[in-house]
């Protein structure tokens, strides 16, 4: 296999793994937020705010990995 092909393959697999990680993490986060909102509807607003902040932080980590995949694909 040419070295370029390995790079593209790695980028694709890396991106897929990244999305799996992000999906799992944010999914758990959303589940906890839903449960908390269901138990105590009056704090739903604060829960939503914290959920969005945590989701943005998790996505930040996701995008690190994504940036590396993009570098792999276009180097």
């Amino acid at each position: 296999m040419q070295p370029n092909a390995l790079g593209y393959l790695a980028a694709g697999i890396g991106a897929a793994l990244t999305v799996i990680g992000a999906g799992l993490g944010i999914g758990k986060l959303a589940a906890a937020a839903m449960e908390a909102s269901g138990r105590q509807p009056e704090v739903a607003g604060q829960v939503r705010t914290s959920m969005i902040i945590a989701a943005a932080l998790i996505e930040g980590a996701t995008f690190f990995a994504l940036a590396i995949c993009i570098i792999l694909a276009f180097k």
Partner: protein
Amino acid sequence: MSIPAIQGSADTVQSAGDTLHAVQDTLHAIAEHGGTHGGPEKGPVDFTELLHHVQDAKEIDTPLGILHLPQFPPFHAAGLTIDMSITKHVFFLWCAALILCVVAIAVARKNSRRPVPTGFGNLFEMVVVFLRDEVAVPNMGSAGLRYMPYLLTTFFFILVMNLLGLIPWGASATGNINVTAGLAIIAFVVIQASAIRAQGFGHYLAHLTGGVHWSLWPIMIPIEILGLFTKPFALCMRLFANMLGGHIVIVSLLGLIFVFGSYVVALGPVSFVVGINFLELFVAFLQAYIFVMLTSLFMGLGIQAGEPAHGGPGHGTSDDHSS
């Protein structure tokens, strides 16, 4: 390798002409690049050609034609080659700064004349009060009010830069890692300065040792110093990758139209792009807020470490929830 940058495609679609214009814009640019390959081709389009729109460029595509930006030959200083030529992102950086200066100063003047702000000044004040009461004071206490100018400037600057990428023919300067690195460096300096100011230089250095036995200092101190740099690095990467990723998705979806080579498939990608533009709008605000919130959080950690009783976060927030 050149880090790709941003070109926004059409904004929230009010009419089909808006998205069609974006498609035409991409098509026009593709045709230009296609000229170097001997004419626009109907076959599979090279994806890297499309990414041109997301990258930094030496000319700006405007509705009135291509604007070539002044280029200066790189000069050498202190062993580095510095290229001060103006690129698309530098141009939009200045645009954002100019817009922010004009708008913020006008709003401040208008708000100072009346006791109750109205109109756009009201909206601005709402955001300012939100940043003061929900971000600065809970994280940093009353000492946080001193850093409000920096936090507000950062928030609105990042916001305007992000939003400029969403208008047609615009580009987000935050999609360039050099811009976000500059913002992160400034955040790093402010975080350390606030920590030194609150703790005193001696205590600040003492905190770098992490409170371990002095024989472990050679291990501890480099790790702590490295830890000082990871947080602003994360700020830089988060903002850059969020902005860049969104625009790459938009360019990719619109590029599907060119990969298939016909207008028939335009409906699918365009409708997705409309949705993603709304998401990008939300992400523009969210990432600006996250940047400022994390900066104030890190500053708050340093400031609280300097308080005599090491009190916990979030004392005495001024709770005037006006609205």
